[in-house]
């Protein structure tokens, strides 16, 4: 269970560029919760993820993971329990290392007691092969190839596999399909659904697609100006349409939408 209490983050404090990115956010994500997050650019969605993941420390408030205070735990330690994917497929993998070596690094999260001088074992290779086969991209036969040779979609699928190879307590997906072509994006979305369900992960997913915001997971959050302005689940969510969500947005934020991508999704949806 992830719990944020009154989290506040200000950038460039005391300058003309001062920006209140998170304005006292309170959020509880239960085990097995899959929440989608929508909101216009600059609403604080990515900042929220950066605070949870530990890319920077919060100014005020606390973050708890399974009732353990992780507010001041460094990013690399949090990574044992928090998996992350970014919009940029290049961010999650080391391009000059092979698929196998990338997976081996991700697998380091599994057992901290393992000797740092041990090598990739046969059992691990078999495990990596099995998991890669599940992606249905033929990557299991290319394990000795550098990751730099893969396409964006393949790299993102691999990153998803790496982030969940050792199931984290919570998975943070920051528009992880936005840079992919529609067909590949659908594939990665399907993969995401399956992996999250199979491992029963808690998951937060930022998206600009209102359709998948309502369709995926069991909960939808909307952010604006550093606050969570809408939090729906259950029947209320089941009865929600894309139009309804947009109306709620205007009502909650008290202004008209200024984001083309969200408006477009109304047409698409």
């Amino acid at each position, binding site marked *: 269970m992830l719990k944020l209490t009154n989290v506040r983050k200000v950038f460039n404090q005391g300058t003309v560029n001062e920006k209140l990115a998170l304005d006292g956010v309170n959020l509880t994500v239960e085990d097995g919760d899959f929440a989608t997050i929508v909101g216009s650019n600059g609403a604080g969605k990515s900042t929220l993820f950066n605070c949870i993941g530990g890319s920077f420390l919060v100014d005020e408030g606390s973050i708890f993971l399974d009732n353990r205070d992780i507010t001041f735990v*460094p*990013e*690399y*330690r949090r*990574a*044992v329990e928090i*998996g*992350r994917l970014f919009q940029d497929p*290049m*961010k*999650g*993998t*080391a*391009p*000059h*290392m092979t698929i196998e*070596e*990338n997976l*081996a*690094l*991700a697998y*380091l*999260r599994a057992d*901290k007691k*393992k*000797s*740092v*001088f*041990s*090598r*990739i074992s046969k059992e691990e290779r078999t495990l990596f092969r099995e998991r890669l086969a599940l992606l249905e991209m033929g990557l299991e036969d290319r394990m000795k190839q550098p990751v730099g040779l893969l396409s964006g979609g393949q790299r993102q699928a691999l990153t998803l596999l*790496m*982030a969940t190879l050792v199931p984290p307590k919570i998975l943070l997906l920051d528009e992880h399909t936005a840079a992919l072509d529609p067909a590949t994006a659908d594939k990665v979305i399907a993969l995401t659904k399956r992996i999250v369900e199979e491992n029963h992960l808690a998951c937060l997913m930022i998206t600009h697609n209102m359709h998948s915001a309502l369709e995926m997971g069991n909960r939808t959050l909307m952010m604006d100006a550093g606050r969570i302005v809408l939090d729906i689940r259950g029947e209320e969510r089941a009865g929600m349409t894309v139009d309804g969500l947009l109306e709620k947005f205007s009502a909650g934020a008290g202004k008209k939408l200024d984001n083309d991508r969200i408006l477009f999704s109304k047409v698409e949806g």
Partner: protein
Amino acid sequence: MSSLLSLPVAISAFELGFIYALVALALFLSYSILNIADLSTDGCFTLGCAVGAQVAIMGHPVLALFVAMAAGVCSGYVMSFLQTKLGVESILAGIIVNTGLYTVNLAVMGFSSNLSLFKCETIYSLTKDWFGPDWYKLVVSAAIVVVVCMFLKWFLGTRLGLSIRATGDNEDMVRASSINPGFTITVGLCVSGAMTALSGCLIGQYQKSCDINLGTGMVTIALASLIIGETLVGKRTVTRRMIGAVLGSCIYRFVIAIALRLHMPTECLKLVSAVIVAIAIAAPYLKDRAVFQKRKLAAASAAKGGRKSC
């Protein structure tokens, strides 16, 4: 060519090539893999030479190698401490450490600018009887390089080695794999420092002397070796890249040997080094340009030919 390169000249070029190859391998780790320009190399090289020389003078030439490596580890640690704990930019950290090492090196040498090892045993004098008078220096140097290469190959295949390689490739990904990049940078620079200092120690014992300015320009020379190797052997696998570094170092020494045979004054050697480095670094780029120009010319002449036929 035979007048340019007699066998003894070739042998001594190889001897030096192998010894200096250790610095190229050190830069392979810090520069090619970790993506850190380690400018403390010059000072670290002299440090290894000075420490090794003092221990050899005390009568322990073999122990000298290990003490010198330990000194190199310390130098690498200070460098990484500045970078990871104090937030100093890597290039600045290198310059700072290099400057500081000058005094440290002088102190190690007892505040004299050179030391002589003529009266004491070295690892070379110890092995002289084993391999014959012409070859012993080459055999010992080559053996040490082979051992270091094997160690490096093994090391980079371990989990720690993989983490170090990933740190230079994508630091975010390393952090996401729950590894502290500060730790991997520290380990990498310490190992790299140990190799640089080992090379310095061997040169000291090889030349039977140690000079405070021995390391000046070492980073340029090692970089040249590394890039010559990468240009010739390619950089596809770790093994190839290591062989490239050693080969590049030997080639560099051959070029210098030929320059000396052509009665190049020794004062000009640094300029020769700089020119070699510039050529080696520019070569891959120029090769691409040449291919491009060729295609451009071919396309232009094809267009011309096409017009004529119309």
